């Protein structure tokens, strides 16, 4: 009995320590896998998500409070949205997961945080090259992160169609943001491939 108890609590403490509490995600995105080994950065991140139906969302982490306000200010000015201070504050407070066109942004920010789950967001329009609203978001983000290293992340779902991704790339290019990363699940390098050989020589060199 005592032995079993010991084992049980050993395992328990292991799992408690190994667990990382993740905030519940508003959107479930199943990412594809890649052989890349770089861990996703967590600081100063702008995350663009694509859901299975091709809706595009813009978000950034809560600890970039200053940048958040700068972004919403810039977007407000660029598009003459006439947002009130309260609405801007709401953007700062919320987990700033934006998936609505500019025309709905005001009413979206008026909604109390508890009701956000019930709102059906239609995504930021990107597929139409004449109305790619992500360009404005990226421009605002770029100026907000001036002088800082901004990490651009694209988190797409396996089943989303290419045009959404194409629209995002177009928005990046328009703003001269030429480098970005895609969030993927880790995957083993296929044996016998060139990359596997390269990794091996690197390991031997060490």
């Amino acid at each position, binding site marked *: 009995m005592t032995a079993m108890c010991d084992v049980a609590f050993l395992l*328990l403490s292991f799992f408690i320590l190994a667990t990382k509490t993740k905030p519940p995600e508003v959107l479930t995105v199943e990412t594809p896998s890649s052989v890349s080994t770089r861990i996703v950065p967590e600081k100063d991140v702008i995350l663009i998500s694509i859901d299975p139906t091709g809706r595009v969302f813009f978000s950034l982490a809560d600890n970039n409070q200053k940048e958040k306000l700068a972004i919403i200010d810039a977007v407000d000015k660029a598009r003459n949205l006439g947002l009130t201070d309260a609405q801007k504050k709401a953007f700062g407070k919320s987990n700033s997961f934006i998936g609505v066109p500019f025309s709905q942004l005001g009413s979206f920010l008026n909604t109390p945080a508890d009701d956000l789950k019930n709102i059906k967001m239609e995504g930021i329009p990107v597929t139409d090259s004449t109305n790619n609203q992500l360009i404005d978001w990226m421009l605002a983000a770029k100026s907000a992160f001036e002088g800082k290293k901004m990490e651009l992340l694209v988190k797409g779902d*396996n089943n989303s169609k290419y045009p959404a991704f194409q629209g995002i790339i177009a928005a990046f290019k328009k703003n001269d943001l030429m480098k970005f990363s895609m969030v993927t699940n*880790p*995957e083993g*390098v296929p044996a016998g491939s060139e990359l596997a050989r390269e990794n091996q020589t690197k390991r031997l060199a060490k």
Partner: protein
Amino acid sequence: MAEMDTSSGGGHKKGPGVKKSKKLSTRVDLTPMVDLGFLLITFFIFTTTMSQPTAMHLGLPKDTDKPEEQNKVKESGVLTLLLGKGDVVYYYEGQLAPDASNLKTTGFKDVRDVILTKKKSTNPSDFVVVIKPDKESRYKNVVDILDEMLINDVKRYATVDISDVEFMVVQKTQEAAGIK
């Protein structure tokens, strides 16, 4: 298992006037504690995500109209991969023939062989892979093919928008193959 000693003496008799010393068992019933332990273990096993997501880096080329800034590629060293509907890859070497006779079909499992064959048969400095995903291809397809570039150590590759001619050809091939 652990039990409490509730018997109030009654065993052997002690002498008159000798107080019965109550002997309490030191063994505690561990069953509930272990139950709770395993319950928590199962909870943490289910909620743990072991593998952290990784980031795949991609640099974009700058669009330019100036001819001197554009990359020139030799036609013989180009392998064009068209990503179509239903996880199918269409590919051709060099330029697409007007009758599309050099368009071949493959899948994501066999595309590595295609890339490696082409890579071996061309001068390394001329070898370029052009990736053209069409409207019906999935995001997974794009990432998979970029991953394939990494696996096969392709130094030069680019994602380009599909042209109308190519899209038509792919559509026709798809219809012929019965992919809807």
